């Protein structure tokens, strides 16, 4: 039994190896092309800003007083000329609203909004006297599952621009991020969503200080930097070659408002609502037979804080994994369904097998390894070469992403941090990946158990 499972897992990793190498190869070309274009900043500005499309930035806030100013400034300092900002205070219990009223000189306005998307009740709408383009919605907290999704839906009810983007309250946008996203929107045919490139800042961002472009010294955050570099540098770009990514980070993604309204807005019953909305858009557009594209803009850079403790990371990944399972079962109809084209036949199965199931299989592999070690004992030579192979593979993928970052956007001072990053990659296989894998197995079991109890996730 264990032997059969071992062979299945081995075959799985071999397929994964081939898939990721293909992804990597296709993404190198894409990233370098986009980088080459981004060097022509002046031309992009001429193209985009001469006929700028108004863009609304939506930022949900929950108990984030005093820490949000830097994120707001990041948006207001953008070089894009036509931005509106909607901040949603999602029933904060601290002094978030009072802080906003004081700092941004908010005054009450009459609540006038569409009720096209269902949300928790809105208490009041404020307009900033300091920044005309800034509106604040004060709403009741939606505590059932995803308050972020509910807050985004509330903002969508008053959003009037054809494009909007979601930004987390702990995310700082690069000044040219929105311009690059709009440029990307205009260059893809029938584009409905564009994902941005997420970097993890050093620990100080959450303390409202300027971002230091260096790899966090916290090992936990460092491992996430490596993971994000891989995910954004070859994952998202690679997905573009097989019909567009099925997941973009909610911390920095631009959408066509009408498309999101047509699919009924963000799913309030899903923790991974950012991934769910992208799958929903794919599903809807394919079902209706509408032409569309989901793009990824690597020059659109955002700095998003991540959990720096193991408990925080465990909880975050637990929510994500359960959310992904919910999304998978919601859109299971697309799986290997030729009616959904490349998304149904390639992207969705690949996403399920390697992104949703990947960490679970990895976790099971670690558990099995220890089981075999205890019960049967293992061939030391075989294990040694297996680990060398796994390490060299991880190094190959990670180093190529680190080098890509070094050659293109150079957001980290790589000369200083290179060895640190390589060291983290070495340690990743020992502490981070087992932790993530076992977490994924636990989350999957929790999801299945909750479903049996009739809960949504």
């Amino acid at each position: 039994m264990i032997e059969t499972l071992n062979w299945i897992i081995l075959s799985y990793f071999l397929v994964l190896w081939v898939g990721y190498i293909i992804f990597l190869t296709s993404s190198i070309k894409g990233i370098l092309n986009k980088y080459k274009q981004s060097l022509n900043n002046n031309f992009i500005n001429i193209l985009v800003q001469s006929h700028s499309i108004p863009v609304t930035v939506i930022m949900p806030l929950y108990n984030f007083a005093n820490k949000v100013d830097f994120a707001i400034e990041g948006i207001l300092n953008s070089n894009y000329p036509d931005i509106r900002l909607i901040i949603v205070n999602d029933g904060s219990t601290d002094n978030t609203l009072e802080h906003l009223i004081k700092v941004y000189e908010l005054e009450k306005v009459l609540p006038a909004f569409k009720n096209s998307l269902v949300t928790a009740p809105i208490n009041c709408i404020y307009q900033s006297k300091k920044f005309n383009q800034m509106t604040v919605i004060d709403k009741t907290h939606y505590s059932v599952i995803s308050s972020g999704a509910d807050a985004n839906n509330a903002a969508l009810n008053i959003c009037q621009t054809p494009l909007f983007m979601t930004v987390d309250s702990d995310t700082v946008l690069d000044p040219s991020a929105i311009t690059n996203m709009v440029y990307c929107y205009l260059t893809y045919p029938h584009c409905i969503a564009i994902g941005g490139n997420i970097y993890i800042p050093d620990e100080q961002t959450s303390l409202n200080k300027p971002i230091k472009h260096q790899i966090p010294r916290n090992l936990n955050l460092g491992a996430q930097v490596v993971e994000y570099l891989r995910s954004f540098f070859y994952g998202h770009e690679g997905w573009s070659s097989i019909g567009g990514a099925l997941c973009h980070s909610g911390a920095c993604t631009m959408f066509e408002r009408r498309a999101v309204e047509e699919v009924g807005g963000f799913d309030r019953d899903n923790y991974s609502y950012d991934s769910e909305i992208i799958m929903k858009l794919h599903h809807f557009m394919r079902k209706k037979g509408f032409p569309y594209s989901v793009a990824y803009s690597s020059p659109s850079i955002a700095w998003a804080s991540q959990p720096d403790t193991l408990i925080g990371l465990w909880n975050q990944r637990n929510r994500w994994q359960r959310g992904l399972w919910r999304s998978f079962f919601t859109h299971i109809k697309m799986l290997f369904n030729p009616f959904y084209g490349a998304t149904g036949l390639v992207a969705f199965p690949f996403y399920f097998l390697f992104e949703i199931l990947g960490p679970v299989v990895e976790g099971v592999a670690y558990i099995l390894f220890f089981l075999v070690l205890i019960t049967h004992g293992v061939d030391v030579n075989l294990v040694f070469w297996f680990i060398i192979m796994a390490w060299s593979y991880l190094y190959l993928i990670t180093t190529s992403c680190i080098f890509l970052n070094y050659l293109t956007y150079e957001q980290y001072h790589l000369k200083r941090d290179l060895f640190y990053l390589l060291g983290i990659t070495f340690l990743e296989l020992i502490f981070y990946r087992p932790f993530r894998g076992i977490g994924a197995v636990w989350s999957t079991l929790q999801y299945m158990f909750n479903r049996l109890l009739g809960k949504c996730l």
Partner: protein
Amino acid sequence: MEILSFSNLIIIFKFLSLIQFALLGILFLLTLGYKFYKEYHNKQHEENVLKIKKLLLNYESLNDVEILFLKKNRQNAFVSFFDLEKQSTWPEHAIYINILTEIFLPKLQEDVYSHDWFARSRAAMILQLKNKYFKGMSAQDEAYLMVLLADSATIVNINACIAVLFSPTQKTIDCLIDLISQKRRSQYEILKAILNQSAFQVIPLIQNRLSHEKNIYTRAFCYRILRQLPKVDIAIESLEQDLNASEVDLKLASLSYISYLEKPRYKTYLLNALNDSDWEVRARCAKIVGYTGDEHLAKALEPHLSDEVWWVRYRAAEALMKMGAVGKDILKSKDIELDKFAYEISQQQLKSFQFNQGK
């Protein structure tokens, strides 16, 4: 299973590890090589930009070698040229025309059919400048613009659309209408906004299109565009038929158009549509009535403040606000005891008006 014995597996693992380490080495060398190339290229790029600006400013005194240099670097040359043109650095148009003719136009065909959308966008912008400085459009330019209008990238379409509007022809306007009416909603709105800014030589071209167009959505789109352009009363053969069309979109677009022109019997059509059984028609018609600003129609809107559908009540109240004193009096006259719905929607509009006045 025999092939996958432990000893064979070790060989496979060793082999894969070796390949991966070899790839890692190659990657490292490639990165180093590209890094040096990038540094050299960036330095060269900065020097080129400065040199190009200088050359363009002294264009009249350039020799053949310098002109060739500008031609070779036409992306950078174009950005600098566009900036200088916007700042009106040159006193005479003749210099613009010389630069356009000698540097950019010889490679226009190459740009139009390029795989790179940067080059295609540049081609569309060159055609904009050409149409701006040279009167009339050649058959060749018209063909180029048709190619650029059919491009899959919206950014190329936007610039081609602007180029078309400098000297519109029947062919290019038809192509533009086809393009815009097939776009997704937000892209449709962007292109429509550009088309709305066009001069009124476009009007007869759109009218001509309407005279033979069969697609109802394209017809509706044409009416919407005409509704945004200066008032020119032109005869449209099938207008009567469109006003009675079963397709709501076409019916309302044509209705909005005749109300804008205040054509005879437009009030009769509006009043009929206000009492339509479809709430969407009633709501959108109320909005059109608001645009007319005709005080005589205010009374007809009043019953719709009590409509069973919120959107109809909202649009009726909004329209009444646009009708001056008569409309506002009707809104103020609503009593909470007699009709709660009409009262609430009227108060919402009145308060919103007061708030905007206060600001």
